[in-house]
């Protein structure tokens, strides 16, 4: 098992590295265009100024040399210098923002699972009734709305009108000293609530539908009939045995939804002014910060491939048949 995990992890890293290198080459193939934007942003004109900028950003070197230099920077943990954040390495910029994106994506994922599980459970219990139809309709409606719509629909009543939740940001007046760990944690969760709900709402329908189908199949299996015949309670059959078997493929599905979740987080971060990786990436693209874009590509590719690996391992943990295979 350990060797299997290690092999999967290595494969994930190699895949991510391949994606990142390819992205680096594509980015630097258009480096003169990036230089134009960099010069424009600085407001400098003339060939002399442009040449000086080209040198200061290292764009006077051939692309293969830039790539080997970048690989060396990655190996040293820095990922090079950020052009749009002078004085900061790419790694520092990314890891400054990564925890916030992980918090948002993680809580969005959790809500996605909880909401999906909840809707699927209601559907299972009320199969064929209006409650089943309503639950599915609401899930589909939420899924049909883009994240920014969901975000604005949450912000207006709960933050603007009722004031139950903050309008934006990560915490309340953090520049003011005071407040213990618990206060800080609760304040953080208070600020995280709406963005996480937005992300979860926009994506739980697929989870609900897949789980419902799988769950229904499991509830029709022969072992369920046997368990009922042996006098096992309905609740234990539904929640203890059939759910576990139904949840296995769901892990893979959740792994596949990770890229979408990360992409959705980019939008949610804009709506809620949540300073995560998504905002960094959007700003980096606008500023043509090639180093930061390449670093972000590598990091996101790693997160997604490792996330997929973890979901597959979870599937194996839930289903012994997969482990045996």
């Amino acid at each position: 098992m350990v060797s299997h995990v290690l092999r999967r992890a290595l494969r994930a890293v190699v895949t991510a590295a391949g994606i990142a290198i390819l992205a680096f080459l594509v980015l630097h193939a258009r480096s003169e265009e990036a230089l134009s934007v960099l010069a424009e942003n600085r407001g400098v004109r003339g060939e002399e100024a442009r040449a000086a900028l080209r040198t200061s950003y290292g764009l006077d070197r051939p692309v293969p040399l830039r790539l080997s230099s970048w690989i060396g920077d990655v190996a040293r943990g820095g990922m090079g210098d950020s052009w749009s954040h002078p004085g900061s390495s790419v790694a520092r910029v990314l890891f400054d923002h990564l925890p916030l994106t992980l918090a948002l994506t993680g809580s969005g994922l959790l809500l996605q699972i909880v909401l999906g599980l909840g809707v699927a459970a209601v559907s299972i219990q009320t199969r064929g009734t209006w409650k089943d139809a309503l639950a599915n309709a609401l899930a589909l409606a939420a899924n049909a709305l883009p994240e920014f719509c969901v975000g604005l629909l949450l912000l207006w009543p709960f933050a603007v009108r009722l004031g139950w939740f903050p309008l934006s940001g990560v915490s309340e007046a953090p520049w003011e000293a005071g407040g213990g760990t618990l206060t800080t944690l609760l304040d953080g969760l208070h600020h995280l609530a709406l963005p996480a709900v937005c992300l979860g709402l926009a994506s739980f329908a697929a989870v609900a539908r897949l789980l419902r189908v799988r769950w229904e199949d499991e509830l029709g299996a022969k072992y369920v009939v046997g368990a009922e015949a042996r006098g096992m309670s309905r609740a234990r059959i539904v929640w203890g045995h059939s759910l576990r078997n139904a949840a296995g493929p769901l892990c893979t599905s959740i792994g596949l939804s990770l890229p979408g979740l990360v992409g959705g987080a980019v939008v949610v971060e804009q709506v809620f002014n949540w300073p995560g990786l998504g905002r960094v990436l959007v700003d980096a693209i606008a500023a043509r910060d090639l180093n930061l874009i390449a670093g972000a590509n590598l990091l996101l590719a790693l997160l997604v491939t490792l996330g997929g690996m973890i979901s597959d391992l979870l599937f194996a943990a839930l289903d012994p048949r997969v482990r045996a295979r």
Partner: protein
Amino acid sequence: MGNALVLPGRGQGGRGLAAAVLAASTALAQACGSGAGDAGRGGAGAADGSSATPARGGTAKVGVIAEPKTFLDWAAETTVDSYAADLVFRRLARRSSVSGSFVPDLAESWQTLPDGRTIAFQLRRGVLWEDGIGLTASDVRFTEDRARMPEASISGYKEAIESVEATGSHQVVFHFRRPDPEMLAHAVLGHVYPEHLLGSVDARDLQTLPFHRRPVGSGPFRLAEWEPARYLSFVARRDGTPGERPHLDRVVMRIFADKTSALRELEGGGLDLLFKVPRETADRLASRGDLTIHRVPTHGYVFVVWNTKRAPWSRVEVRQALAASIDRKALASRFEGTETALASGPVPADHPWHDPAPSSTSYEPAATAARLTSVGWRISGDGRWLDEQGAKVRLEILVQHGNTVLQDTAAVVADNLRRVGLEAEVRQMDLTTLRARVEEKGDFDAALYSRPSTAPVDLAGCFGSGGAENYAKLADPDLETMLDAFGRETDLEKARETFVRAARRVGELEPWTFLYYRSETIAASRRLRGLEGCLPNVMECASEWWIPKDRQ
């Protein structure tokens, strides 16, 4: 009023939003020839007329869209960089919107020498950098030398300066290439940086300097905390300039992804100050009792660029006819709320060398037909103009996508032109593509641009054949002769005469049709006082802000 005037240097026009704001001290007040002017210190009267005694303490929260990238003018890209630098660093002098003159900052006095090309500053003694080292003339000289590096954002605004020398520990002399009525504005543009920390840094290493994130300033505040993409916290210095401690304890710069989020926070009480509030929103906010809206006219303007290298716009008569078809007063009234915002040329009315004769053609739609007929055009049966070859005349106006003011202005201009029989369309595109088509390829009929509020008046840069901002691709021999003469002139009065003649020639040629001046709208919480001293560049006098005790 003064505006930075760059004598034709034939070099970089160097725009950059940061440099434009750094020169914002020239926007509203008269230039001083010499002397210290008024100190401009002390709290301004409270907006509600209550007690004007500044109270100590409190935290002001300023909203910015986008995160500052650096505190160094040389690498600055946006106005937000300048806002942050204003808190931590100082300038030689700054404009007072109360008196209209320059008030001392790092310089306690200055004198312009009789040759009209030299200005000498006496620096204030006892000003300390945050590390305890004293600020001297060497710091000013070093800063000016670095500001004139080709890749520096601010270099285009320093082109008029030939050299800067430190003639004593606290005496600095600026030598200009030519007589310049705005020498003081050019000299004081930008902040002063510490030579002892940055002097040995190679230009190639400027990008990676830790100084970008951990500045060591001489200003009223120091950077205490920087949470990426969230906020910067500045605390008042107790050891800065003798006798000048800010009233506030802290200024927090809160970072927002977009204007909508920032406006929500402003209305919710989470901000005390927000810049560039959209006009429609400002009108709505003005009715609130807890906010004050400051609308300040600037020298930034909106204009139409005609491609003088493409027929039929290459003909002066055609450009004049089209310009006469645009109701600029109506545009000024619609977009700025007053006809007085009408822009008449490249030299603002308050400039010492302003020529009262307007540089843009006045609105005479009835005369358009005669003008166009005179060049061989005729009206077709469906009321549309046909050129000399009988082809329907079509005009495409390019405009930046996402800038709603410019987009709406372009739509109105196109409508004005359609009313006189021209087939005019507006095409939106992203800024990079727009600039590539207009400035690099010259592939356009007309484009709608806006000029930053204090971009220098630069006839050569904008209308000379080698000018970096000659978007219209103008190349008029008479104008070139005048600009050449202006560039070589050493006598101030003769330079003025030549300049005025050149400006009139630009008006005759109509490469640009000047539409209206823009205003800056700032929304401020009523609890934040002391802003009136240097509108619209309020960050420069953050040391004068204060909050009443009962509102802290």
